[in-house]
């Protein structure tokens, strides 16, 4: 299934923030986690994650540190800041409202589809 580009873009920030709320992580691992969570349905162009992460860093929602990885390469790790936690909570409330509305609308659509015209 190909998911609409705007939908992917809108969900990217809350997804990344939520994944980071599980603990410190880095780009490749975040992409992998997104794949796991969506059962492989949500495909990102991997590189696009980085401008997003950098924007979050600029807005003080995440903090980044360079450290050595287990393979010995230098790697940039991201961690949620307090502002990031607050932002995640806000986004979560917003998405819950959207989610609820969508559920209602699907139920309506299903009902009217089952009734003969």
């Amino acid at each position, binding site marked *: 299934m190909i998911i609409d580009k705007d939908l992917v873009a809108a969900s990217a920030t809350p997804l990344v923030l939520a994944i980071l709320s599980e603990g410190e992580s*880095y*780009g*490749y691992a975040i*992409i992998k986690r997104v794949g796991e969570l969506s059962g492989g349905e949500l495909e990102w*162009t*991997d*590189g*696009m994650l*980085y*401008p997003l992460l*950098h*924007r979050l*860093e*600029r*807005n*003080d929602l995440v903090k980044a540190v360079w450290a050595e*990885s287990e*393979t010995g*390469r*230098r*790697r*940039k790790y991201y961690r949620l800041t307090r502002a990031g936690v607050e932002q995640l909570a806000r986004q979560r409330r917003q998405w819950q409202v959207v989610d609820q509305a969508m559920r209602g609308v699907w139920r309506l659509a299903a009902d009217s589809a089952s009734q003969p015209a």
Partner: protein
Amino acid sequence: MVNEGLLEERIGEWRQYFRRRQAVHSADIEELEDHLRSQIDALREAGLHEDEAFLVAVKRLGELDSLSREFANEYSERLWKQLVVSPEIGASWLTAQRDTAAAVGLAIAAGVAIKIPELFGLHISGPRADASFYVRNLSLFALPFLAGFFALKRGLHRRGWYWLAVPFVVAGLVANLMPFKPNSHTETLIAIHLPIALWLMVCFAYAGGQWRRHDQRMNYVRFSGEWFIYYTLIALGGGTLMGFTLFIFRAIGLDAEPALEEWVLPCGATGAVIIGAWLVESKQSVIENMAPVLTWLFTPLFTGLLLIFVVTVLWTGSAIDVEREVLIGFDLLLVLVLGLLLYAISARDSQAPPGRFDVLQLLLVICALIVDAFALCAIAARISEFGFSPNKTAALGMNLLLLVNLGWSAFLYARFLARRISFTRLERWQTAYIPAFAMWTWIVVLLFPVIFNYR
């Protein structure tokens, strides 16, 4: 594995290719490279040959062009250093030609405009010169054309054009309908403040109507700094040209001075405003190396000077002698320090951690604040003795405005050095403060002549 060397070579090529994109910094490339290598490792564990693994990993990372465009969108200050992002959204040859035509046309129009009042008997030089008229209206001959240049270049919508015209029309009415007495204080104030007020209005055209956006404002601040450098360079060249003209015509017994004063200087100086702006727009990458160099050179020098001054004042205990020009002098000092600060902010990578130069910058701001405090104490005594004059009030207002800006900047800078906040906050503060300057200069232009009865 046999082809380990080949894989390294491939990754090296990929890195080289990426490095040519100016919107992507080397630290970003390193991060992406780590991603690429992780992906390759995973794919090879799944059984792919390293060639295939490399190709798949690069493909999944995304096309280099679209990726670097995404980075450029995220970092507009890097975009600034790179004229053309990509042929798709950057300036093509055709639009470059159109810009050139617009710039030259508007520069000529500005040069002609300044000669039009002559037709109505308002002479710009000579014994019957009407200096008063030109002092009040000077900015109105150049800046509307500059605003027009940007409005054209950014494709400002029709409503935007109307809004843009408002301040210029108001300025024209104020400068010419109010009954100023020649050489009065309020006239001098208009001459100083009107260009600043209108310059800040050009920001609206520069941002293509999106003047509320912080990144657009920051770009305008950058533009102003670079424009100043270009204009100075053009002025130096023009001065040399005029010097030689005088010299060679004197050799054949002709005096070229009237022609220079009547035509070359006024037309050249107004036209150069637009040409300078056009050069900044089209040659950003040439000049962008200059602002940081100037900052690096002069920040230590000015910090040293101010430190020595503060120590001397404290040591000798001599109070600042309050002449009429003193407050304006200290205003200029603060403007200069603010200018250095803005150059430094605009040239700085906002993600870089605090460094030694940041400490120096903070020291400079603090020294300027201390020196200004001395001056303010002295001036307060004088005002309580002689009351408010238009000059003193305007200078004092500007001084307080700058003081608030620099004081809060110093506070934010200290917090940044303590790693409590990110550098972006400092940028935001500067861009958010610009409307305060605009409001104050318009207050001086519109209200001061009336309040002080055209003194």
